């Protein structure tokens, strides 16, 4: 038990240190533009269709489940509000981050893990190439930028999916649905003209992106020789980042809506 705790703390320490090293080298974003662009592409374009598909169905599920309940009280007109708020505050950021952890995060861990066990990281060191600037910073920036962008897409398509169900299953007209969805997002708290429900969600997904990248990179760098090493690094990356996302999600929600 004590040993597990110590290992856990050492692991957290390792990832925090990695994160600090990335922050110290953020200048590499400018000097290594092409690497960053490539990672934006890797982190974004490859998973966009997954986010769209899943987001659509999540919106449909939220609409159907809550809509049927609301209908029992004759409140189905509120469905636009419910779908928009739950997509923007929770579903969009969380679902997008989960998809990113399972696809981009696992790919990063596998890729860096393979490099670790096949001496490629050692080769970089021998050639005096900073692997943080060359490999890690671009990946962290790629996920930190793409996660919020894809969350926007997820939110939008989720609201569209919800509207589809509202009209076909709940007999709520589309214009009423979209009006209530948009109304609900026009609150009194504005940052850059964005309602709090939206920007809090986007900020969360930015943090999730950083978490996924740092955990995945850390797992990959720590992989040890043998194919098992890469496999377990990949599993660890996905498992740990999903746990970390959920815990961070709670605290971020608390800060935004409770504190």
């Amino acid at each position: 038990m004590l040993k597990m705790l110590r290992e856990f703390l050492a692991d957290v320490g390792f990832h925090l240190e990695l994160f600090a090293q990335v922050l110290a080298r953020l200048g590499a974003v400018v000097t290594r533009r092409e690497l960053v662009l490539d990672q934006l592409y890797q982190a974004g374009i490859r998973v966009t269709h997954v986010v769209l598909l899943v987001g659509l169905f999540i919106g449909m599920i939220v609409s159907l489940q809550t809509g049927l309940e609301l209908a029992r009280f004759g409140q189905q007109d509120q469905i636009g509000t419910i779908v928009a708020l739950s997509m923007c505050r929770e579903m969009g950021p969380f679902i997008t981050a989960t998809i990113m952890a399972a696809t981009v995060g696992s790919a990063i861990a596998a890729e860096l893990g393979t490099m670790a066990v096949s001496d490629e990281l050692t080769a970089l060191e021998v050639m005096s190439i900073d692997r943080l600037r060359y490999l890690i910073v671009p990946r962290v920036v790629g996920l930190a930028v793409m996660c919020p962008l894809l969350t926007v897409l997820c939110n939008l398509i989720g609201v569209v999916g919800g509207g589809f169900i509202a009209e076909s299953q709940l007999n709520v007209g589309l214009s009423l649905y979209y009006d209530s969805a948009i109304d609900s997002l026009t609150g009194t708290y504005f940052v850059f003209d964005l309602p709090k429900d939206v920007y809090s969600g986007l900020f969360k997904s930015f943090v999730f992106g950083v978490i996924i990248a740092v955990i995945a990179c850390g797992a990959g760098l720590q992989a040890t020789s043998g194919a098992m090493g890469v496999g377990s690094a990949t599993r660890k990356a996905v498992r740990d980042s999903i746990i970390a996302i959920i815990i961070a999600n709670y605290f971020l929600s608390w800060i935004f809506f409770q504190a």
Partner: protein
Amino acid sequence: MSARGSHKTLLQFQGVHKAFGQRKVLQGLDLEVYEGETFCIMGPSGCGKSVTLRHAIGLMKPDQGVVTVEGHDMSSITKPDLRKLRSRMGYVFQEAALLNWLSAGDNVALPLRETTQMPDLEIVERVRAKLELVRVPDAFDKLPSELSGGMKKRVGLARALITDPEIILYDEPTAGLDPEISSSINHLIRELGERLKVTSLVVTHHIGCIKTVADRVGLLDGGRLHYVSTPTEFLASQEPRLVRFLGDRLD
């Protein structure tokens, strides 16, 4: 053969110990490599050959003892000095260790692109020259996954040579290659030693390799180097341990 080597020591291990947990790998290793010579270390799998090379380029530090390269103590060398020193050393990895998303040409160009201000046109020219030198001129645009094992080794060698190093470390340059390709790689190493006047430290468990490339050779066993001599003497030796080791190889 030894006429090629002067007697200035470039690379030296003095009483080097290295253990991983309970596993004692190096136990008082002494080694001297002279300027211009090709020194081979033979030894069975797992005896610490790669660990020795990693010490020679500062990837590992000895638990005890001293590793010196061109007069620098590798345990206390400063980062800028280590950088400078490493740019004058080449390391040929056992599995080539090419970055798999870069073409062979880009892999070879990497050290120049990342650590120098050289214009790209000049870099490409140099890369082509090195690929020519290691006889894989057509590999330039190919990805590592499209290359055979022997070709990967050659590209890895070209990458190690791109900064014109004075010291080259080879980790089992012929392991896993068929005899014909092994022999051509061995001749290439020999030729590089003669033409470029580099100092080489080669670890191998192939007799063919030491016959072709070595000026001197020693057996790494029990964490120390034994029977350091010329390849002819080494192979003719009647030392029981050596006979047993070499007997295994000849079969």
